[in-house]
């Protein structure tokens, strides 16, 4: 298995990593038994994600996809962020080995979970905007 240079770059130098003290929304997906947990923090102003950060327990691809996902939503509106797909994250990383595709799915879900939490805190039912966030995928689901 070989990672692309982009994946290795985002693994070695992750962007937007760390806890956010005054986050407006926090989402967490995955579980420790499967070996990956992603936690995303967003700061929102006028429907725009002004800041975003992450913490991830997981393999190289889990860290790289988290990092890339934060880059892809930062400065974008919430509707734009909700359009983010795992495919877009993968493409931005120049691809992932097949067994690591689930990491990009987790990254997409982590963003959605953070937006959900934001709406919840605003007193808005997130389901009307974000839709159902699917149950966390099975351990290492291979697409």
């Amino acid at each position, binding site marked *: 298995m070989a990672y692309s240079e982009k994946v290795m770059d985002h693994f070695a130098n992750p962007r937007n990593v*760390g806890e956010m003290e005054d986050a407006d929304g926090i989402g967490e997906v995955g579980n420790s038994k499967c070996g990956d947990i992603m936690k995303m923090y967003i700061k929102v102003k006028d429907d725009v994600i002004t800041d975003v950060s992450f913490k991830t327990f997981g393999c190289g691809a889990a860290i790289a996809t988290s990092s890339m996902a934060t880059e892809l939503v930062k400065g974008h509106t919430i509707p734009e962020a909700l359009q983010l797909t795992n495919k877009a994250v993968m493409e931005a990383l120049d691809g992932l080995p097949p067994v690591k595709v689930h990491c990009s799915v987790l990254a997409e879900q982590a963003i959605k979970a953070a937006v959900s939490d934001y709406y919840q805190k605003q007193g808005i039912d997130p389901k009307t905007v974000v839709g159902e966030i699917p149950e966390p995928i099975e351990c290492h689901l291979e697409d």
Partner: protein
Amino acid sequence: MEHRVYADNAATTKLSSRALNAMMPYLTDNFGNASSIYTEGGAARKAVDQARETMAQCLHIKNPSELYFLSGGSEADNWAIKGAAELSLKKGKNHIISTKFEHHAVLHTLEYLEKHGYEVTLLDVHEDGLVRPEEFEAAIRENTGLATIMFANNEIGTIQPIQELSAIAKKHGVLFHTDAVQAVGTIPVNVEELGVDMLSLSGHKFHGPKGVGALYLRKGIRLPNLVHGGAQERGYRAGTENTAGIVGMAEALKESCEVMEERNIRLARLRDKLIDSLLTIDRSRINGDRVHRLPGNVNVCFHGVEGEALLLSLDLKGVAASSGSACTSGSLDPSHVLLAIGLPHEVAHGSVRLTFSTETTEEDVDYIISVLPPIIERLRAMSPLWERIIAQDNT
């Protein structure tokens, strides 16, 4: 120049220059087929016979003809287990005893046999990674025909009491095989003393070439042929001999046996130094018994960290190691060995295995000691699991 430390010698080792030199003539001028009667063939025949004698001597095998050359550890395990299972069945015995933490070459072979009507009992290896002889004896039934228990575990390096186990097997008329792939060339292996019926070994684990190994098969045990064809390996395993590979393996084993005593004293000291140092890291643990352990094996878990991320980080610092995390085991679960010694999944994901060889130096170990703790710190700083572990501790 980038500093590289190869610390994955349980996966494979570098070919020794002595082995390479011994092989060269058989890759060049002495290319003859060992079965041919003319001069070139004779040279190859002699080399193969000599290699068998050399290896028999190193392993204290009385009769060199009890050693059969084949392609490696997996093939030796497959032949021994499937062959002995078939033999046992002829006596109406379809029960096989093994352990939970065998190499997949053994475990998957047993799964195959289970599908074909055999019953398999896998012994517990407890928290320390050691089989209990009394539990082995208690597991033996009327219909037990075969036991296969590894000599030294490839992940956690624990060494099993093979001599005691094989004596129990003998007492009950059970054939005994040991996968000694991690033991041969690494620690003293005296086949005569061990009293085993079959023993697997592989050249590339002790600085020999890849793709060559051997099965010790006690005289009188007539396993079914492994490969049907010509008369090579007394007809058990047909196919023109891999002369260069066999010669290289024998030379590497001879060299390993010559340097073993001194090397192992040195490596055990380096191993203990590394383990002691890594255990000073918060929430780390050693996997496997510390005493009954291969001299060059370190296997440690760090809570809150995932193994593949750890390996990639080490690689970026020039260190080659391995892990039992699911991401590196290529399956859904972390290493079956770590689960067998009772680790929860989330802890097993955070394991790292560092294995030494004769080439490993004190500087290498000091380098690992200098680069590993900051990597753990960095990964934990970004780990929500670590955050949770700390939070739970503070409540």
